[in-house]
C-alpha cells in the first residue's frame, strides 16, 4: 500500500490532464448514448410497437418491461448513492470521505438516467408538461406515478444542492489551479462565498444528510418506489409489505457496487492508490455483503410467504418466479458474491481490487435482472388469471437493450464531464487524510480483519 501523502495536486489531476484514454472513453460513452438516441427517435416515429411490450390479458403480452425495470434500478442506484454519502457525513465515517462526492455524483447520474427512462417509456412524451404538470394538483392525491416523479425531482434538487454547497468550499480554495476556461461556471458556483459560511454550510449539509437518512425508508426506495407496485391489487407478484425493505436493500447493493466500479476506474486512471485506498474497497465490500445478506433474506421471506401462506394467486406468482432460470441465476450470483465477501473477510489475503470489481459487476447484474423480472412477473400472474393468453410472452427488443447502453453512456459522460470541471474527491478528504495519517491505519485495520 502506498504511503504517499495525498495532495491538492492529486485531486486536481483529472482536471488538468487530457489523455488519449479519456478521449476514447468519452467517444465510447457518447457513441452509446447517440446510438440509443437514434433508436429512440425510431421508436417515436413508429410507436412503442417496436418494443417487445404488449397488452396483458387477452393480448398475451407484458405492459411494462425493461424500461420500467431499468428505471427503478437507476432510481435505486441514485437513492443508494445519496444514502451512502449522507451516512458518511452524518455518522462521521471519515474513512469513506474520499468517495462521498463520487456517491453524490452517482446520484445525479442515476436520477438523470431514471428521468430519461420515464420519457422513453411513454407513448406521448411530448405531453409530459401539459398533461402531468397541468393536472398535478389533482393527480398528486392518488397517482403513485406522480408521487414518484415528485420524489425524484425533490431528490434531484436535494442532491444537487448538497453537491453544490460542498463544492463551494473546494472551488474557492483551489480556484487558482482550475482552468480559466470554466471561469464563469466557477464564478456562479461560488457567488457570495466567504470563509465565514463554512461552518454554516457544514451544519446545513449535516441536516440535509439527516433528512436523507430519515426519509430513505419512507420516501426513497423504501417507500414511494415500491408503492408504485405494491399498492395494486391486480398483480399479486408485487404486493406485500416486504417490498419496501427489499427495494431499499437492492438500492444500497446497487449503489455500493456502482460506486466501487467508479472508484476503481478513477483510482486506476489517476494513480489514487493513496486516496481511494484498498481499505475503502475492503470496507465497501463488507457493507455490500451486509446488504446482500439482507436482500437474500427478504427474498426468502417473500417466497416462503407466497408459497405457503398466500392465497392461490400469489402462490402461483411466487412459484413461477422461483422456477424462472434467470431468477435463479440472479440469486446464485448474489449468493456467491456473499460467500466471497464472507471468505475474504476471514481471510484478508483473498481480497483483491479486481475481485471486488467482479463482485460489484455481479451484484449490479443480479439486481438489474431481479428488477426487470420483478416488473414482468407481475403481468404474467395477475389476480384475474383466467385468460388463455396469460402468462403472455415478453422479451426486450434490441431498442430496449440498447437503452441500457445509452443510459450507462449518459452516466459515464456525466462523470467524464464533471471530472474535468470540479474535483471529484473533496478537498476536505485530502486535508483530513493528511491530518490523521499517522493513526488512520490503526483505527481501521482491525475492522477489516474482524
Amino acid at each position, binding site marked *: 500500500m502506498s504511503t504517499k501523502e495525498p495532495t491538492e495536486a492529486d485531486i486536481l489531476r483529472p482536471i488538468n490532464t487530457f489523455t488519449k484514454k479519456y478521449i476514447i472513453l468519452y467517444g465510447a460513452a457518447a457513441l452509446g448514448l447517440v446510438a440509443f438516441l437514434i433508436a429512440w427517435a*425510431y421508436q417515436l416515429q*413508429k*410507436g*412503442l*410497437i*417496436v*418494443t*417487445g*411490450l*404488449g*397488452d*396483458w*390479458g*387477452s*393480448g*398475451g*403480452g407484458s*405492459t*411494462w*418491461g425493461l424500461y420500467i425495470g431499468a428505471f427503478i434500478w437507476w432510481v435505486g442506484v441514485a437513492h443508494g448513492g445519496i444514502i451512502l454519502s449522507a451516512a458518511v457525513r452524518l455518522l462521521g465515517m471519515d474513512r469513506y470521505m474520499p468517495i462521498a462526492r463520487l456517491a453524490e455524483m452517482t446520484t445525479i447520474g442515476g436520477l438523470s438516467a431514471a428521468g430519461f427512462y420515464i420519457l422513453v417509456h*411513454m*407513448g*406521448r412524451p411530448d*405531453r409530459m408538461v*401539459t*398533461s*402531468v404538470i*397541468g*393536472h398535478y*394538483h*389533482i*393527480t398528486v392525491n*392518488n*397517482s*403513485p406515478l406522480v408521487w414518484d416523479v415528485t420524489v425524484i425531482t425533490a431528490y434531484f434538487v436535494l442532491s444537487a444542492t448538497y453537491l453544490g454547497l460542498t463544492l463551494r468550499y473546494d472551488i474557492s480554495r483551489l480556484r487558482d489551479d482550475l482552468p480559466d476556461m470554466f471561469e464563469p461556471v466557477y464564478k456562479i458556483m461560488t457567488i457570495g462565498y466567504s470563509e465565514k459560511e463554512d461552518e454554516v454550510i457544514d451544519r446545513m449539509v449535516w441536516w440535509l444528510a439527516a433528512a436523507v437518512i430519515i426519509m430513505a425508508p419512507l420516501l426513497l426506495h423504501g417507500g414511494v418506489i415500491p408503492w408504485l407496485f405494491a399498492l*395494486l*391489487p*391486480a398483480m399479486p407478484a408485487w404486493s406485500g409489505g416486504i417490498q419496501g425493505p427489499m427495494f431499499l436493500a437492492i438500492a444500497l447493493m446497487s449503489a455500493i457496487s456502482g460506486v466501487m466500479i467508479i472508484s476503481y476506474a478513477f483510482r486506476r486512471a489517476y494513480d489514487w492508490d493513496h486516496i481511494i485506498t484498498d481499505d475503502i474497497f475492503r470496507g465497501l465490500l463488507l457493507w455490500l455483503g451486509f446488504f446482500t445478506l439482507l436482500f437474500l433474506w427478504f427474498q426468502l421471506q417473500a417466497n416462503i410467504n407466497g408459497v405457503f401462506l398466500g*392465497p*392461490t*394467486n400469489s402462490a402461483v406468482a411466487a412459484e413461477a418466479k422461483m422456477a424462472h432460470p434467470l431468477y435463479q441465476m440472479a440469486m446464485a450470483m448474489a449468493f456467491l458474491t456473499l460467500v466471497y465477501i464472507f471468505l475474504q473477510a476471514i481471510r484478508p489475503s483473498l481480497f483483491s481490487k479486481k475481485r471486488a470489481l467482479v463482485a460489484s459487476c455481479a451484484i449490479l447484474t443480479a439486481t438489474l435482472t431481479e428488477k*426487470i*423480472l420483478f416488473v414482468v412477473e*407481475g*403481468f404474467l400472474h395477475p*389476480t*384475474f*388469471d*383466467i385468460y*388463455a*393468453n*396469460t402468462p403472455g*410472452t*415478453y*422479451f*426486450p*427488443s*434490441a*431498442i430496449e*437493450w440498447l437503452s441500457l447502453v445509452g443510459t450507462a453512456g449518459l452516466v459515464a459522460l456525466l462523470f467524464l464531464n464533471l471530472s474535468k470541471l470540479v474535483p471529484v474527491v473533496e478537498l476536505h478528504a485530502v486535508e483530513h487524510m493528511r491530518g490523521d495519517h499517522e493513526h488512520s491505519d490503526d483505527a481501521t485495520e482491525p475492522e477489516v480483519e474482524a
Partner: protein
Amino acid sequence: MSTDDESFHPLGEEWEDELESMLDDTEYDSELGMKMAQDAMRVTEGELSEAEFHDRYHEEVMEEFGEDERPTKEAYEAAQEEAKGTASRMLDKFDGDGDETRRETMKKMGVGAAAVGMGAFGTVADGPEQSLAAEKGPRQETTEESDTQWGMTIDLERCDGCLSCMTACSQENDLDQGVNWMYVMAWEDENHHGASESGNTDVNSDFNRLSDFNMLVRPCQHCTDAPCEKVCPTTARHTRDKDGLVLTDYDVCIGCRYCQVACPYGVNYFQWDDPDVAYEDIDGFEDPEDPDEITHAKYEHGERWVDSRAPRGVMSKCTMCPSMQDGKQGEEKVGTTACETACPPNAIQFGNVKDEASDPSQHREYPTKSRAVINLNTDIPSADVVDSNVSDGDSLEDAIEAIDSTEDADLDADMVAIAKAIEIRSRESETEPGDGENNSILEKQQTVLEFVTALEEYVDLESEESLATLDLDMTDSLEDSAQIRLEQYAGDPSSFQLLEDVGTNPNVTYLGTQPGPEAHQVEGPTKYEDVDLLDKRQEYLDKETVGHVDGVSL
C-alpha cells in the same frame, strides 16, 4: 379541469367511511363536524334546506376554517339571490330517487359535512378553488350525485358464444386487430367443466343454457371506484359525472400505461402503433364541421375526445358508446350499446343501473321473470287478437284453442301459464317502464300484462280449474307457485360481480356461474379467427418488434 371522480373524494368511498373516525384526530372542532353531520342528515330528509343548512353553520365554519367551501355553498348563494326554488329543487331530487340513491346521498351528505375538516387540509396545498367539495362546473355534480350510472347486467347462461358483440364493437369503434374491448371467452375450472363433459349441475332448465360452455363476457366494468382512474397521472382516465362512464381523454393521455397495470380485469388495450383506420376515416366523421354530426372523432361536448379507437401512443378500452348515450347517434340509440344491440339472445342488458325500471336493474333484481319476459315477448299474442277471438264464457282451453287457430298467433297452455306467472310476480314491483331510455324489459312486460288483462276479461285465470290447467296450483300461495313455474321455465341464476373483494365496485353484474379462482379460458363454440377477430394481439405486435426472436421470452 375536472377529475370527474364519482365519489366526492378521489380516494373513493372507503376513504369516506374512515373520515368520520379521522375527524376526531383533526385539529378542527370535531363537535362542530358532528353537529353538522347530523343536520346534513336532516337536509337529506327534507327537514332542512341546503341553504338553511349552509346558513346555520356559516359563521362557525368561517371562524374555524377561515373559509366556507361546503358543497351547499352554491345553494346558499342561490338562495340569497333568489329566495325561492332551492328547497323544492332539493326535495325534487330526493323524492324522485329510489331507496338506494337516497341512502347513498344521505351518507354522502353526512360525510360531506364531516369532511369539511379534511377539506380544509386540501385547501392549504391547493388553494380554495381546489377544495374538493367546492369546485364549480362538473366537479360540483360529484357532491350531488348524478341519477344516471350506465352499466350492464349480462346473462352468461344466455350467451351462446357467437362473438357477435365483439365483432359489432370492433366495427362500431374501428378497432385494430386484437384490440378486443369486448371480449367473450369460454372457461372451465375444477367445479365447472366445459362442453366435452356433462354435469353442469347448476343448470335446471333447458331454456337458459344456450351453449354447453361456461361463458364470460368481459367489457370494461366501468367501476365506481376505478383503480385505473386513481393511478392515472394526468386525469386522462376519468369518470364522467353525468353518467358514470369511465373514459380516456385521447388528447391528454401520455401513454404511461399505468391504468392498464392497475385495472384488475385486463380490459385496456394500448395503441402501440398507428391505428388501422385513419382519423379521417373514423365512422361519423362525414361532416366534421357540424358538431352534431361528430360522433366518434373529436368529442364530448366538443371538449374531450373519448370515443372510438385511440390514436397512436395512448390507451383505449371499452367506452360503453358515449356518443350513443349523448344522443349523437340519434335518440333511438340512447341507452343502448353496439354490443347490446348485436347480441342475438339478448344476453347483454345495458342501461341506467340506478334506475329501478331499467333493463340491467330488472334483469339483476328479477332475473327469472325478466328472462321469461324476454323470451315470451316475441310470441305473445296482442290484446287485439285476444279480443277478436275469445268470447265471454269460453273455457280456458277454448280460448287457447281459438287464439292458436288464428293466422297471426300461436298459443298454448304453457305460454298462458308463464304470462300469468309473470303477471303474479310483477304485482309487488315496478311495472311502468318510466321515461328512462330503452327500458325494454318493462316495455315487453307491458305487452305480456296487456295480454293477461285482455284474456282475463273473458276467462277467470285464477279459478281452481284454470290454475290446475296452468300448473299454477302446486303450493297454497299463488306467488310461490308462480315463482316455481317461472323457475322451471327460465331457471334461477345467481348473480355476481367480477372480483368483488377487490373493491372496484363494478357496474357490470353477471347472472350465471361465477368462474372460480383457478378458472382458465378454453376454446369456445366460435373461434375468434372464424369471425375475423384476432385473439392474441401479441402475435401481431411481435411482427414489428425490433430484433424479435420467435419463441424467446422472459
